[in-house]
C-alpha cells in the first residue's frame, strides 16, 4: 500500500501546532515532544495559550498553539519561525501564518474552513480555495474531520467526541513525515484513558488514519529523518519549568531536613506552582491559598519564623503587593523564597505572555536600604537548580531570596537529565538549640563567616525573644533608634548579601575567552543567546556567551570577564534593565538588544545584531 517516499535527513525541525483552544493542540504537541525525546532528539518546546478562558470557538482570541523544536544536535530554544505549521482552523492559520518559514510546510484541516469560521477569522475568501497559499508554501489541505469520522465508524461515541480526535489525526500525519513510531502515543492513550476504552479506540484509529493518509496519499513525497542527538549520557525525562521549580523546592527541604510551606494566591502564570505543590502533601508539603498576595507572603514568612521553609510565588502585580513584607523579612532576617514568574506588564498588561521586565522590581523595588539576593533561572530544567539554590541561600544567610522565572520558562519544556540530589551543594539547616542557662538569648548574634543570625524558632526553651520591623540593636535585636547603630545595621545587612558572591562558582564562559563581543544574558534568554553564539562561533567570530544566574550579588569574576571583550551585548525582553545594572556596576558601555513582544527573542536577531556590532565598532 505504502508508496515509496524519498528520505532526507535534517538537523533541525520546528513544528507549530495551532488550532482552537478546544482542538487539543497542547496534547498533540506534548505527544510529539515525548516521542521525539524517546527517539533521542534534543528538543525544546513552547506552548502559547489564549488570554481568555474559553474564547468563542473559531475566533482569533481563542487560538492556542504549541511549538516544538527538535534536532540531532544540542539546541537551546523552541525555535523561531516554524518549518511546519499545523493549522486546525482559519483563525489558527490567520494568527500564525506570518511566522511560517517561506516555503515551509502547511498542514491544514480543510473541514474547518467553513464560511462561519472564515468569517470569524476575518478571511474574505477561502485561502484553501483561492490559491493564495500554494505559491508560497508547501500547502496540504486534509479533510481531517472526515478522515476521523470514517476511521471511527462503528465506535459508540458522540459525534462531537469523535470529531475531537482530529488532533491525533494531525499528529499521525506528522509522525509519518518525520518517521516517528506510534507506539509511545498508543501506550500513553491506553494509560490515560484506561477506564474509557472507546475513547482510546477512537484516538488510536484517528492517529492511524492520519499516519496512513500521509503514507498513502500522493501529497507527501518525502520523509524526513532527524537523527538522535549526541546528548550527555544519563536518564532523561521531559520537564517544564513549573515542575522543575517544585522539584527544586522539594529537593531543598529533603536535603536539609526542613519542611516546606508554600503560601500564595493564584495568578497567571504562577498558579501552577501552587497546584503542583498542593498535590504533594504526602511528601510533607503544606500549601495554603491565601486571601491575597500580601497574606501569601505573610503566611510564608510566618511559617519560616516557625521553622518551616516559607515559599511564595506570584507574578508582577502580585509581587508588587509583596514589597512591604520583603522589607520585614530583610530586617527580621528570616529565610524566605519569593518566586516571580514574570509576565508582560505594566499593570495587568499581557497576563499570558512572557517578559523579563520585573528585574528592576526584584533588585530595587523596596523602601529603604533593602538588599536581597536575586537569582534567575535560565531554562525550564534549570528552574530546578535555581529553586534549590534560592532555598539554600535563604537558609544559610537568613534572608529572603527572589527567584526570577517567566511565562516561557514555566510553560516551556526540555529534555532533562534526572538529577541526583546527592550531587547538589550541601544544604545544612540548623535551628538554635535550647538554652538552659540564665543568659538572655541574643537573637542578632551572627555567624562570623556568613553574618547570618541564628534561626531560633518558637517552641524552643530559653530562646524567648522579640523581633520586628523597627531597627534592631546589633547583637541584642532590641528596638533601637540610634544613628550609629542604624548605620551599622544597614552596612551589616548589605555586607551579608554582598558576601554571597564569595561562594559562587566561577562564571562559565561559552566561546572565546577574549574577543570582539560578549553576549551577556540573564534568565530565559539564555537559550537564544547560546544558539546565537554557537552560530557566530561557527562563522569563526570571536564571541562568547555568559549567562548570569545570580543578579544580586553579581559574581566577583564578572568584572574581569567583561574586560576581555571589545563589546558587550545584552539581549533582554525588556527595555534594558539588566543593561542598566551592568552599566552602573562596571561602567561598561553595554549595548542592548531589546524586544518587548511578549515572546522569546529570536536567535537570528541576536546574530544579526552581533555581526553589526563586530563590523561597525
Amino acid at each position, binding site marked *: 500500500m505504502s508508496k515509496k517516499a524519498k528520505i532526507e535527513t535534517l538537523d533541525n525541525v520546528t513544528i507549530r501546532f495551532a488550532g482552537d483552544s478546544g482542538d487539543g493542540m497542547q496534547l498533540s504537541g506534548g505527544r510529539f515532544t515525548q516521542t521525539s525525546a524517546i527517539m533521542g532528539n534534543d528538543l525544546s518546546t513552547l506552548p502559547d495559550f489564549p488570554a481568555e478562558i474559553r474564547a468563542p470557538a473559531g475566533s482569533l482570541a481563542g487560538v492556542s498553539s504549541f511549538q516544538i523544536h527538535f534536532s540531532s544536535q544540542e539546541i537551546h530554544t523552541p525555535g523561531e519561525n516554524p518549518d511546519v505549521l499545523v493549522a486546525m482552523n482559519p483563525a489558527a492559520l490567520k494568527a500564525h501564518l506570518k511566522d511560517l518559514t517561506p516555503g515551509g510546510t502547511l498542514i491544514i484541516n480543510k473541514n474547518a474552513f467553513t464560511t462561519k469560521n472564515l468569517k470569524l477569522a476575518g478571511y474574505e475568501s477561502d485561502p484553501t480555495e483561492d490559491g493564495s497559499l500554494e505559491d508560497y508554501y508547501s500547502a496540504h489541505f486534509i479533510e481531517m474531520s472526515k478522515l476521523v469520522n470514517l476511521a471511527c465508524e462503528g465506535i459508540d461515541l458522540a459525534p462531537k467526541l469523535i470529531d475531537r480526535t482530529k488532533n491525533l489525526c494531525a499528529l499521525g500525519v506528522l509522525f509519518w513525515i518525520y518517521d516517528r513510531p506510534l507506539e509511545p502515543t498508543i501506550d500513553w492513550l491506553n494509560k490515560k484513558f484506561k477506564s474509557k476504552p472507546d475513547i482510546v479506540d477512537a484516538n488510536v484509529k484517528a492517529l492511524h488514519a492520519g499516519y496512513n493518509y500521509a503514507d498513502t496519499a500522493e501529497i507527501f513525497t518525502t520523509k524526513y529523518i532527524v537523527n538522535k542527538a549526541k546528548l550527555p549520557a544519563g536518564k532523561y525525562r521531559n520537564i517544564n519549568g513549573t515542575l522543575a521549580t517544585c522539584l527544586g523546592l522539594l529537593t531543598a527541604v529533603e536535603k536539609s531536613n526542613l519542611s516546606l510551606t508554600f503560601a500564595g494566591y493564584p495568578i497567571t502564570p504562577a498558579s501552577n506552582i501552587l497546584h503542583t505543590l498542593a498535590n504533594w502533601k504526602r511528601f510533607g508539603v503544606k500549601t495554603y491559598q*491565601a486571601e491575597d498576595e500580601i497574606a501569601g507572603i505573610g503566611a510564608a514568612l510566618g511559617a*519560616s519564623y516557625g521553622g518551616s521553609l516559607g515559599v511564595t510565588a506570584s507574578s508582577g502585580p502580585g509581587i508588587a503587593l509583596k514589597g512591604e513584607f520583603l522589607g520585614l523579612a530583610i530586617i527580621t532576617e528570616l529565610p524566605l523564597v519569593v518566586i516571580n514568574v514574570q509576565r508582560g506588564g505594566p499593570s495587568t498588561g499581557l497576563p499570558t505572555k512572557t517578559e523579563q521586565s520585573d528585574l528592576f522590581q526584584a533588585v530595587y523595588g523596596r523602601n529603604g536600604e533593602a538588599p536581597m539576593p536575586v537569582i534567575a533561572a535560565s531554562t525550564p530544567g534549570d528552574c530546578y537548580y535555581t529553586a534549590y539554590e534560592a532555598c539554600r541561600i535563604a537558609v544559610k544567610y537568613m534572608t529572603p531570596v527572589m527567584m526570577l522565572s517567566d511565562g516561557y520558562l514555566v510553560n516551556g519544556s526540555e529534555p532533562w537529565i534526572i538529577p541526583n540530589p546527592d550531587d547538589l551543594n550541601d544544604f545544612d539547616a540548623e535551628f538554635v538549640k535550647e538554652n538552659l542557662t540564665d543568659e538572655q538569648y541574643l537573637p542578632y548574634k551572627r555567624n562570623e563567616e556568613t553574618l547570618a543570625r541564628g534561626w531560633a524558632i518558637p517552641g524552643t526553651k530559653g530562646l524567648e525573644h522579640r523581633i520586628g520591623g523597627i531597627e534592631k540593636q546589633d547583637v541584642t535585636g532590641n528596638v533601637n533608634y540610634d544613628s550609629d547603630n542604624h548605620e551599622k545595621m544597614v552596612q551589616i545587612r548589605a555586607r551579608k548579601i554582598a558576601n554571597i558572591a564569595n561562594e559562587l562558582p566561577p562564571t562559565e564562559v561559552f566561546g572565546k575567552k577574549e574577543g570582539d563581543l560578549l553576549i551577556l544574558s540573564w534568565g530565559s534568554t539564555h537559550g537564544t543567546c547560546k544558539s546565537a553564539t554557537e552560530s557566530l562561533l561557527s562563522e569563526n567570530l570571536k564571541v562568547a556567551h555568559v549567562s548570569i544566574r545570580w543578579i544580586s550579588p553579581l559574581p566577583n569574576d564578572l568584572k574581569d570577564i567583561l574586560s576581555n571583550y571589545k563589546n558587550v551585548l545584552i539581549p533582554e525582553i525588556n527595555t534594558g534593565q539588566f543593561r542598566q545594572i551592568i552599566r552602573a556596576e562596571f561602567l561598561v558601555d553595554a549595548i542592548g538588544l531589546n524586544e518587548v513582544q511578549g515572546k522569546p527573542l529570536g536567535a537570528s536577531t541576536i546574530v544579526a545584531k552581533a555581526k553589526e556590532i563586530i563590523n561597525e565598532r
Partner: protein
Amino acid sequence: MSDKPLLKKADFQSDQAIRWCPGCGDYAILAQTQKTFPQITEDKENTVFVSGIGCSSRFPYYMNTYGFHTIHGRAPTIASGLKIANPDLSVWLVTGDGDGLSIGGNHMIHLLRRNFDINIMLFNNRIYGLTKGQYSPTSEQGKVTYSTPMGSLDYPFKPTKLALGAEASFVAKTIDKELKHLQAMILRANEHKGTSFIEIYQNCNIFNDGAFAKLTDRDTKEEQLLRLEHGKPLIFGIEKDKGIYLDGTTPKVVKIGDEYSIDDIVVHDEEDRFIGDMLANFTESEEFPEPVGVLYCKERPTYDSLMSAQMDESQKGSKSSKGLNELLNAGDTWEVK
C-alpha cells in the same frame, strides 16, 4: 497541666522598658495578661505573641514569650503561617482598631472564617494612637480629629458584628478597666479551639480620653453594661431590674416588674448565632445596653486541625522518604548512553 512548677506573673514580664503614655489603658491589659498566663501555660516557650503596628501592637515586646511585631495590619497573615508551620504553638494576636480593622480588615475577616486556633485581642480605643490621633473605623461619626477637623463622615464598624458577619466562632467583648472580666475573657479565649476574637475597649488618655467613660464610671456603668452569662437572662441595671425582651422579631429593653417578669427576658445562649447577632447590634446604641462577655461561642473544626488531618491522610500508605526520587523519575523517561 502537669506537675511542673507554676510560672508567675513576673515570668511573663520581659526586660524591655514599656513605652506607652503614662495612664494608657494598655498597661492594664498587659498586666492582666501577664497575671493570667500562669493559668494558661507552664511552658512559656510555646507561646507566641504576634502583632501589627500601633501603640497596642508594641505589646509583644513586653511579654517574656516569643514575640513578633510585624507590619501594619498584617499580623493575621504571619500568625496563620506560624500556625500552619507549627500547630502546637499557642498563638496570640494583638492588634488595634486601626491595625486590625482598617488596613488589616481583610486578613482579620479571613482569619475568622478560616478559624485557625489563634486568640485575637483587639484593643479598641477608637482612635489611631501611634500616628497621633486620627479617627479610626470605630470612631463615632462626626469625630473631630487632625484628619477630620469638621468631623468624620464614616459610619463606624461594630467590631463584634463584623466578626460575626465573618463567621467568627468565638466573639467576646471586655474593657481595660474591668480587670477580672478581662482575665476571664482571656481564659475563655484560650479554652476555645478556633479563632477567638476579644474586643477590648481601651482608653487612650492622650488622643481619645474618656471614650468609654460611661462604661467605666463607677456610678453609671452598671446602668450601661449588659453582662452576659451563658444560660442566664439578659438583665442589667444597678438593681438588675432591666432586661431584654423580644417583641416579635424586635428586641426591646423592658423593666422587670409588673408588665414583664424575669421569664419574659431572653436567656443568653452562647451557641445561638441569632442571639449573637442581636447582641452585636446593641453596640454603642442609644437604645440598648452595651454587652460585655461572650456574645457567641460555638466550636467547629479549626483550619489547623483540618490541615493536620489532610496531611495525615495523605501520608497513609505512601512513605515520604522515597518521595523525592519517585517524583524526579515520574512520567516518561529514557536513557541516553
